[in-house]
């Protein structure tokens, strides 16, 4: 029985990882490793879609911070899709901590943000 699943796709030159389910200390690290492991080195960044996450706690936030650090080191961006009324939004609010990356409310906004940074064709 898996508490959460990761669905990986590619869009706008980025890796889109959609998490579905619950994230806690039992699966957070494994989910983070799955996303980083699926990351092509030439991708411009990762869109971590957390809109279908039903639960996420401090273990999840910790892993997202870790992901941001490792992506930053490779010059890649991390965009988080966190709708305003989502459980992940509540967790971040309760934790009072700085947001672990650029946050947008929906996937399209994340992809637009990445497209904006796409180099123009010659």
């Amino acid at each position, binding site marked *: *029985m*898996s*508490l959460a699943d990761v669905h990986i796709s590619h869009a706008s030159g980025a890796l889109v990882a959609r998490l579905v*389910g*619950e994230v*806690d*200390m*039992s699966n957070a690290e494994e989910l983070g490793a799955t996303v980083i492991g699926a990351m092509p080195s030439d991708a411009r960044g990762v869109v971590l879609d957390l809109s279908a996450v*039903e*639960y996420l*706690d*401090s*273990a999840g*936030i*910790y892993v997202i*911070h870790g992901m941001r650090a490792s992506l930053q080191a490779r010059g890649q961006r991390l965009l988080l899709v966190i709708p305003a009324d989502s*459980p992940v939004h*509540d*967790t971040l*609010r*309760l*934790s*009072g*901590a700085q947001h672990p990356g650029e946050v947008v409310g929906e996937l399209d906004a994340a992809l637009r943000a990445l497209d904006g940074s796409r180099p123009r064709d010659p």
Partner: protein
Amino acid sequence: MAESPATRTRRPRLGPGQIALEAAQPIVDAPDQVRASYRFSDPALSELPLDRLLDELLNRTQEALDVDTVAILLLDEEAQQLVARAAKGIEEEVERGVRIPIGRGFAGRIAAERVAIFIADVDHADILNPILREKGIRSLLGAPLIVEGHLIGVMHVGSLRPRTFGQNDVAILQLATARAAPAIERASLAARLEHEHNVSVALQHSLLPKRLGSFVGATLAARYLPAREEVGGDWYDVIELPRGRVGLVIGDVVGHGVPAASLMGRLRTALHSYAIESHGPGRTLELVDRFVQSLNEPAMATAAYAVFDPYASSVQYAAAGHLPPVVITPSGTRVIDVTPAPPLGAFPYGRCAEHEFALEREDILFLYTDGLVERRGIPLSEGIEALATSVQGAVSPEEACVAAVADLVPLTGLRDDVAIVALQNSPVPAELDLRLPAEPATLAQVRRMLRRWLVEQGAGEADVAEVTIAVSEACANAIEHAYSPAPATFELEAWTDDGEVTIAVRDNGQWREPRGEENRGRGLSIISAAMDDVQIDRQSTGTAVVMRRRLWNQ
């Protein structure tokens, strides 16, 4: 007659001191034989199970021939040996598990030659079994046990005094063996079938869940009843699913005996595997159907799979050729009208529709196999009606199982096996007091339980979300504290007092100070933000985190 030279010439391979006897011609007016004939044709003998039958035959033979010892050895066909199975006066034969190869020794030669053999003096004979000499037997007479031309064993009698067994004695022994052989064959077959039955039942039980598990908001009961004669392929299963849902499976493999029980084991595993991958009931049964199609053996089964969501009080349901489920409510019982897909393995690429129905608080979902409701000469619909009537008014799944078994299982036993699994949408206790394993996997269970508990305490959506994350963080701390090679536990208590919930999490580990940017510091921030009041009591013996929050929804 025993020393007849004619028999010697006809059976030259007999050992020293052994004399083969011609089949005795019955002597009509011999009173001994008439009496013996009555003894051995008693119809009561045919009713006895194998062990009692053998015992009775030994007694009657001993009496009829006035001998000191009687023994029956049965053929072990595979080993080509005679195995001592029952004995009087030489019980050691059986106790020591004497085995005599066919063709050797006294009994072995009777079996090989298929003739009665008389040994006047054991001391001068080729005797393989030392027990016969040890017991001081002087003279022996034995005859083969033959059914429809097949040798099934040997029966022999012995005398502690030198004795000449005459034609009359041989005739009586042959009356005994003629009566004994078919009865033994029949009883052995029954014993073998019973053994196979027992093996199948044991197999079946080993394949069924050992325990039903405990679920928040669901109470469970189940039964497996083997058929009187043959085991079948019925099964049930209870599956823990993500987000607090409970999967309930019932199934029936077509066929009987060990093959059906073995296929049942494979189907149960297949269904369980697809179910925990979070496929819905319809998709799960479609996948199991494909699995059955791929077996390349004639295999068919009916099955139903129900997923109960305790938060929505609803059931998603799909069936392949299976009988309709029964729902027991406080106001009555209803048979859920669902059209099942064809049985598993019936047609390739079958589609299996999903149905949804409500299972309100206190309602019981009752799944069963056809053995419970199918009776010869009675329409199936009447059997299902009888079941609905029987379980009416049951206030727990256990009570429903008890009622159904008491009313519908005949006293004479079942012709087909029966599986039942029942689930009740049940409330959680008003106060929680739990000891939980200090493992990360516990967290998800705690959250499920707590969500349901909070809703029942009158908590609103925000209350549920925020208290749940606070408690889960506190439990994560307890699990980290308890980090040790030995299995550890922690305690969770929760109660409500005048619209305020209090939740205490206690562990036996050492408190560790939050470390800056690390998880735990963030966890504590979350707990403090989510709850109105947090007390942390750190002792050398353990840490207690007591959290309170007034429910907004009240």
